């Protein structure tokens, strides 16, 4: 079954849009991939981003944007399929492999990605990154989480507060 033509039916040639990162780098990408972002989808439907104009994204730097677009391009075909009910097990396994590798990155990049996914309203990417951070801390004690997330060592006051918390919420620690 052929996927329905998205957008203006340009005889097969996919419609391209230009995105401009906060540090003025231009990214040309298929409208279908950029449309994974709810925010961009609205602009694109209004006819924005084509020609020489480009859509400025003042909150996303080029390193983050290229990472975001890597995700969008990989996920666009499945998204166009409406959550891909027809996708084969192989396709789904491949996407899962991609996702696992995609979030195997430094915490500072995770942070930039989660902000960008939030600002651009890319639902799948938000969940993927949030889940990755959750997996990093799951089952760890607060002290271990502080270390995992790179908190500075607790001050004596903070340590006292943590101890008090443990007494007050004993049921959550057992």
């Amino acid at each position, binding site marked *: 079954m052929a996927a329905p033509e998205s957008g203006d039916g340009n005889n097969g040639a996919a419609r391209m849009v230009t995105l401009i990162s906060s540090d003025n780098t231009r990214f040309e990408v298929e409208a279908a991939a950029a449309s994974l972002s709810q925010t961009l989808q609205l602009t694109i439907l209004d006819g924005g981003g084509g020609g020489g104009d480009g859509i400025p994204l*003042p909150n996303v730097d080029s390193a983050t944007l290229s990472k975001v677009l890597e995700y969008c391009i990989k996920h666009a075909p499945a998204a166009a399929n409406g959550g891909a009910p027809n996708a084969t097990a192989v396709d789904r396994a491949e996407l899962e492999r991609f996702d696992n590798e995609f979030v195997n990155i430094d915490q*500072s990049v995770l942070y930039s990605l*989660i902000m960008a996914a939030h600002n651009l309203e890319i639902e799948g990417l938000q969940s993927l990154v949030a889940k990755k951070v*959750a997996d990093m801390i799951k089952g760890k004690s*607060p002290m271990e989480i502080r270390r995992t*997330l790179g*908190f500075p060592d607790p001050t004596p006051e903070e340590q006292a507060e943590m101890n008090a918390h*443990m007494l007050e919420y*004993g*049921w959550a620690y057992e």
Partner: protein
Amino acid sequence: MAEPGGRWRRGLWIAPGDGADHITGLPLELRARIASFLPFRQVVQLSSLSRPWRRIHYHTPVVRVKLSDFLFPTGEMLALDEEHAFAGLEAALLRRAEEPGSGSSKVKALEIRYSVHEPLMRHHADRIIALADARELRIEIFINGRRDSSAAWALDLPPSTRALDVVAFGHLAPTISGPGAAALENLGFHIGVVREWSRLPSLRILTLELVTVQAPFPLGACWPLLEDLSRSWTSPSSRRSWKRSSSVVAPELETLVVRCGRGHEDYRSFTLQAPRLRCLEWYNQFTERVDIDVGRPGSVTAGVIELVWNGGRDMKDRRALMMRMLKGLLPELPQEQLADAARPHITHDKYYKVHCHGELVLEEKITCDLDALMSPLQLASLNDLQNQVQN
């Protein structure tokens, strides 16, 4: 509120590349979203991390509690300690419910795992469900030792609940009541037994997955608004193979999905009366008699009929069932014309499949693509065909 090591530039937080904590700098909403993947107990622990985390457990859209975790490793309930733990959990949820400006503190989804046959645990589960008053409720039944899986149990839905999923692992489905029962729109019941149906006047979507249905399917009066019904059956674990009739009468039903796994029971007869049905998906349920009334001929325009078998029955039975169903969808078309019209859209596959003991078994499958058969173009030409026959 800049963290040490980073800097703000034109409203953009430049993350430091020094392995320092970046997550605390995220808005509360995003941290709550991360915490939503964790058990609620750990979310409460997170509130001890530092000041920006203090109220995190009031804001996670999803609350996950496994009451089974409150058991001691021996699996025994030690009343005093349990009571203390449950009281703490309930107090936290109560304070959350009383949080002013309850927009983001409202629980969107509650996932709770408990044993319905431990009176103490069920009592607390009921309280937690009421306190969370979640829009979506997902219950997983926890089996503690050998319990009677056929004991009836009730579930009181809080007023905000619109969607309920119960994974019963062989237990009975609950009888549903409470303030939320009248407003429930979406019900899913998985891996269990249904002995009676609850009256749910707002129900629109019903999903039954690997469910043994022992009660006659209720009439439209029970679920007058039902639009979407998915069913998949399993046979009871005992070899009690009584044949049943099934009938679906639903005035608002638009989508019906019937899916059967391996080892399912065949139906003696299947009756469907759904004047607004548009989509029918039928996988693998064999029935000797089928009686389909969908109002107008050709009003079902989407879906699929797929029959898979090995050995047992021959091709002829399957083809005959397929044609009986198509006849129900297009009752006015003479048998021969129907067969001609359907032929291009019915495919027959033969393939080997590896079964559980590693043996290769030849399977056969016939599939009819209803989208293609019923597409408007096809219908037009069918009508022509009909006219020719009549003239």
